[in-house]
């Protein structure tokens, strides 16, 4: 390990032109990359060995190579489906043109393609659902958290409800949400289907709590001196919130939002699986029911995709936090 590092140091041509600090920062970066790479390689190897020793009724448990093959196969599926869609559209246009040539009064229509959703479609649906659910949760949780943090009476009134509903699993909510949405929600929208709304609301119900609790704590822990400053200069309520409370609470609010988004993403997969709402969860369930020799490999692709997307979502939140936070020197992790 040390030898490799030294080699890299030696092969860095301009190493001497850097000052000490940035030079060591670069070696540090290399070091962490190499360590991360090693960790992944060791994991892949152990996975490979373990997988070849597990035999299920659907065949051998997929190792890294089989999963990689499935990535290719899913990609091919996607391209094939896209080609079909294009062909379908071309056929429609040709047919319409023919009929118009015969009968100029013919009402030509283009019908949307209704093929099987591909893996990419399912990922898009899931992202849209979690985004919408998280958005609803956030616009409820942050204002409510600020109110709870500012007013201890309201907090005392709401706190028991928070404590009771916080630990409830999404799967317990799901039947209720499904029934309520079917009863109350009517829409012909392509995007906001009933299934979509059901999943999104289930996500909201579960991802509300971390943001709400962290916002409350953030607001209550504003520096006492700053609150006294606000009292002495008699800041009106809206300025007190925007100038003093919110900037102080931003780090806590973001911690809460990141936890909420992570919870929401986890909840979504379970909800989609159980409710047969479109998305990654449904993809996994369909593959499981399908039970071909490729299924486990495809599910493993979905597992890794879920992990990578969750990781990416957290990174995006971190970037937003860095943009919004006043304290540019704070170390965010």
């Amino acid at each position: 390990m040390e030898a490799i590092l030294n080699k890299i140091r030696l092969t860095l041509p301009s190493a001497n032109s850097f000052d000490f600090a940035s030079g060591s920062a670069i070696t540090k970066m290399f070091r962490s990359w190499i360590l991360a790479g090693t960790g992944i390689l060791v994991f892949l190897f152990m996975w490979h060995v373990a997988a070849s020793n597990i035999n299920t009724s659907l065949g051998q448990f997929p190792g890294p190579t089989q999963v990689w093959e499935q990535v290719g196969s899913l990609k091919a599926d996607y391209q094939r489906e896209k080609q079909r869609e294009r062909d379908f559209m071309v056929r429609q246009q040709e047919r319409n043109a023919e009929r118009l040539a015969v009968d100029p009064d013919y009402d030509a229509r283009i019908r949307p393609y209704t093929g099987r959703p591909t893996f990419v479609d399912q990922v898009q649906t899931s992202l849209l659902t979690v985004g919408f659910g998280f958005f609803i949760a956030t616009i409820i949780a942050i204002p409510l958290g600020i109110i709870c943090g500012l007013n201890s009476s309201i907090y005392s009134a709401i706190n028991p409800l928070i404590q009771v509903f916080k630990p409830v699993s999404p799967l317990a909510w799901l039947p209720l949400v499904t029934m309520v949405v079917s009863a109350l929600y009517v829409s012909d929208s392509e995007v906001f289907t009933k299934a979509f709304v059901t999943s999104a609301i289930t996500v909201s119900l579960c991802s509300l709590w971390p943001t709400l609790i962290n916002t409350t704590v953030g607001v209550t822990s504003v520096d006492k001196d700053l609150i006294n400053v606000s009292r002495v200069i008699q800041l009106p309520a809206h300025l007190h919130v925007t100038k003093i409370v919110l900037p102080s609470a931003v780090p806590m609010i973001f911690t809460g939002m990141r936890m909420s988004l992570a919870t929401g993403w986890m909840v979504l997969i379970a909800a989609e699986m159980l409710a047969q709402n479109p998305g990654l969860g449904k993809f996994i369930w369909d593959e499981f029911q399908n039970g071909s020799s490729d299924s486990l490999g495809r599910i493993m692709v979905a597992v890794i995709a879920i992990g990578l997307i969750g990781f990416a979502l957290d990174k995006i939140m971190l970037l937003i936090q860095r943009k919004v936070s006043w304290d540019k020197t704070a170390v965010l992790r």
Partner: protein
Amino acid sequence: MQCYLELSNVGIEFNTNNVPFKALSNVNLKVNKGDFVSLIGHSGCGKSTILNIIAGLHQATEGGVILEGRQVDSPNPDRAVVFQNHALLPWLTVYENVELAVKQVFKGRRPASEVKGWVEHNLDLVSMTHAKDKLPHEISGGMKQRVGIARGLSMEPKVLLMDEPFGALDALTRAHLQDELMRIHSSLNNTVIMITHDVDEAVLLSDKIVMLTVGPEASIGELLEVNLERPRDRLALADDTAYIGYRNDVLRFLYGGTH
């Protein structure tokens, strides 16, 4: 004769976990316009509590505070506070910190067009114009405290309340800021009440030194009038017999064992 600021029979009782604790009792104090008054006493004797009662941040449970003939019981910019730990908003620049206070206090009193000039004037008073666009974490502790003082002065308070303003500073910075405070006080002639536990600081700056007994039920033990010529110079006063006398009076009170 009616005086400018009067505390009459002020007492306060705190209720922590249903255990009553009487922190102050029978505090009587008269302050004239333009006076520089120091409150001195051991830690925990209730100096800050008195200041907070005058500021309106705490409510006295007995007696009351009268400023210019009117009782005060809530915070108001006419009693600006300079906090021990500067209490600047870390997300606002030096200029914006003062501006926030000025905008609020000027509202309805003076035209908005004067805000900028007044903020800059006050930063100039404490020699901080050069750093007006810096954030608090980019400047030193002494500079932050100057900005805190500028913010206090910018409200044109009837009484400027200072809670150990130099307590967290090193000796050299402290001496420098004391000199500036004396300069500002002599030019603006504002009424100042300052908490300190530095004997030299108290004697050097004050017209009156209020010495507090040890709590609970702390009260005013002695009142010392400091009749030294202004402007005062710390070097010249170092060997001054009157100065040394006042200094010893305070030291005897604090460490004499009777309190």
